[in-house]
């Protein structure tokens, strides 16, 4: 019986269940969730909605007249029902992209870092010696590369909030899973693998066994390790700068600040007595800083690591641009201001209209009447009204 109900319900535009108990609300939600396999969202404001909110994949509680029970049981809480639109279309859209980019980037940077350690083992008779000082490795994920990712995850916006509300079709990038499919995940991991290979091989070949300074000294493991690590930090932070599309002062501070922090750390760590800094004592000031080969290596490795990604995104933007790229370009070149007609037309196309039921018939009638009106007064300038059928 309930399968028949489900089969009927999914072909309807909307279904109203009235006089249902809280348990039945939860059961209906479960039926839809398991029967269709889609992601469900439940929104409610009272204690009788708690079951339904907890049953659905996403539960939204409204805090207000009926108390705080719904809020306490929910994943998200808002204060008015109308904020649901903003929650989904603006914040849902942004969060999906932010989380997808953050996770992919995290894998990338840790693969780029960790694999260089593995490659080095082949040169140490697999004895387990790490090429980096312990302190470098400790700080890698804590200070040196974590803050830019946090700023990406908190502040990144592909389009502004007004545009998100004007173009609800952009939200569809989430349900279609365009930013976290296997192609993208494996692509980022491949990028990490490539980066680690470039960093390792270039450093080994450049510092091979000859002198690295005009005064004839050869590089020891501390010098090679510090150079390799500097390359990793710079390459990985430049990569995140290429990934970001929305730069506030916070992003600039964190990204460029992380690279600066690394050099500051190397400087200060080197000033500590050798009891703490061992082979890294004065390494930047004495050994690496005055050596042109150090700076040349960092520049070369950073560019070599980021060149494929830059080529890839340029190519993609040229031949296969995604919706938010086009809209970013329209906003950048202010074409929405110049060509308002086009902008309104695209906005209306980006809202999916209902196709069945009474509402659709009303919409069709309105469109017909509007068409007649436009043909009659085709020479008049239309007032600035929005042709969207329902809000």
């Amino acid at each position, binding site marked *: 019986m309930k399968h028949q109900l489900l089969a009927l319900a999914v072909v309807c535009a909307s279904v109203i269940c009235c006089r249902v108990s809280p348990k039945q609300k939860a059961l209906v939600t479960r039926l839809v969730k398991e029967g269709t396999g889609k992601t469900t969202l439940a929104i409610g404001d009272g204690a009788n909605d708690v079951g339904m909110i907890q049953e659905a994949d996403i539960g939204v509680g409204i805090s207000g007249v009926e108390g705080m029970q719904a809020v306490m049981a929910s994943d*998200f809480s*808002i204060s008015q029902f*109308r904020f649901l639109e*903003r929650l989904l279309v603006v914040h849902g859209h942004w969060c999906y992209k932010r989380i997808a980019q953050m996770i992919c980037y995290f894998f990338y940077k840790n693969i780029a870092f960790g694999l260089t350690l593995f490659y080095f083992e082949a*040169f*140490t*008779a697999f*004895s387990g*010696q790490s090429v980096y000082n312990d302190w470098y490795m400790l700080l890698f994920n804590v200070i040196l590369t974590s803050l830019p990712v946090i700023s990406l995850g908190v*502040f990144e916006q592909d389009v502004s*909030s*007004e545009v998100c*509300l*004007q173009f609800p079709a952009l939200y569809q990038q989430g349900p279609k899973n365009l930013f976290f499919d296997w192609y993208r995940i494996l692509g980022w991991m491949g990028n990490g693998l490539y980066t680690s290979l470039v960093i390792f091989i270039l450093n080994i070949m*450049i*510092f*091979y*066994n*000859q*002198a690295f300074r*005009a005064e*004839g*000294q*050869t*590089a*020891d*493991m501390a*010098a090679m*390790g510090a150079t390799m690590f500097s390359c990793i930090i710079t390459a990985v932070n430049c990569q995140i700068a290429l990934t970001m*599309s*929305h*730069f*506030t*002062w916070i992003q600039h501070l964190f990204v460029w600040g992380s690279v600066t922090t690394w050099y500051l750390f190397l400087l200060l760590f080197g000033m500590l*007595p050798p*009891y703490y800094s061992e082979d890294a*004592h004065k390494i930047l000031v*004495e*050994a690496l800083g005055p050596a042109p*080969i150090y700076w*040349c*290596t960092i520049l*070369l490795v950073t*560019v070599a690591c980021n*060149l494929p990604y830059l080529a890839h995104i*340029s190519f993609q*933007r*040229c031949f296969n*641009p995604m*919706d938010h*790229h*086009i809209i*970013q370009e*329209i906003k*950048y*070149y202010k*074409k929405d201001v110049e060509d308002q007609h*086009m902008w309104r037309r*695209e906005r209306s196309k980006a809202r999916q209209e209902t196709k069945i039921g009474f509402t659709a018939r009303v919409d069709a009638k309105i469109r017909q009447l509007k068409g007649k009106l436009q043909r009659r007064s085709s020479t008049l300038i239309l007032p600035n009204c929005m042709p969207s059928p329902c*809000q």
Partner: protein
Amino acid sequence: MSSHTASSSNGGNGSGDSGVPKRNSKRPKYSKFTQQELPACKPILTPRWVVSTFMLIAIVFIPIGIACLIGSRDVVEVVERYETECIPVLNRTNTVQFIQSDADKTCNISMTIPKRMKQPIYVYYQLDNFYQNHRRYVKSRSDEQLKSASKENDTSACKPEDIANGRGAIVPCGLIAWSLFNDTYSFSRQNQSLTVNKKGIAWKSDKQKRFGKNVFPKNFQGGGLVGGATLNESIPLNEQEDLMVWMRTAALPTFRKLYGKIEVDLEEKEVINVTLMNYYNTYSFNGKKKLVLSTTSWIGGRNDFLGIAYLTVGMISFALSMGFTIVYFVKPRRLGDPTFLSWNRGPGSH
């Protein structure tokens, strides 16, 4: 996560500044930070940026690559492998036994200078297949002991080379010091000897901070097996430059270490006669020993790789910029063209 989006949200234009609230409003204070409306720059990748970035990289990298290659090509380097040559023919089947015996280990080799070498000419010894970067080897030292005489007995990390049998701690302890390289070289040309300056080959920070000036070697090589050189017990550690250079563990199994400097010019086609004492045992592990004479340039020793790598990346970048230019002319896409939006492109696109 709760989103108290107090700003108005009717599909509209403008940010959340609707009218004065009528009741006692619970709306949180507006700030650009919490409303995510901080001023931001939103660069987009236009064709102009793409082509100019790649072109800029090419313009910067190709000259740097040429400069690095010239710097490396300016370096004159002479390498002479000698570990097999310096064993008399009769003993070549049993090299380990020979090297451990008391036989005369003097060896004479000659090196021909291919091009004029301007002073200072650096003398290196190169070892192959010697894993100075092995984990157990690297940790087998005591920095405390090297620095101060009072910490002489701080030898716990140095086992098995920590204590001489019944005579107290070994200074400097550990495998790194124990395996100190001890081949010596003396150079002469046309029967006139060339002095090798062995001062100033170690890092200044080693001499001043890591090795103490009142720490003297004691019981060195006294642990039963002799692994390398012996040290003069009257010279403090911060003047033992060979030891300081050796203790900087190398990163790769093939490495060179600075032996000294020759401070005269060497002319082209000169033959340098080297009298070397072939003491060091690399035969137990099939290691190779090489003697290297090298000048340096601003970039260091001879290694064409950096220059070639720069040129390669510069050329690839140039090719990419040319490629993208052609593509943008052949198949241009007008920026901001709404026909590329997914709902205008028809089904099956995103």
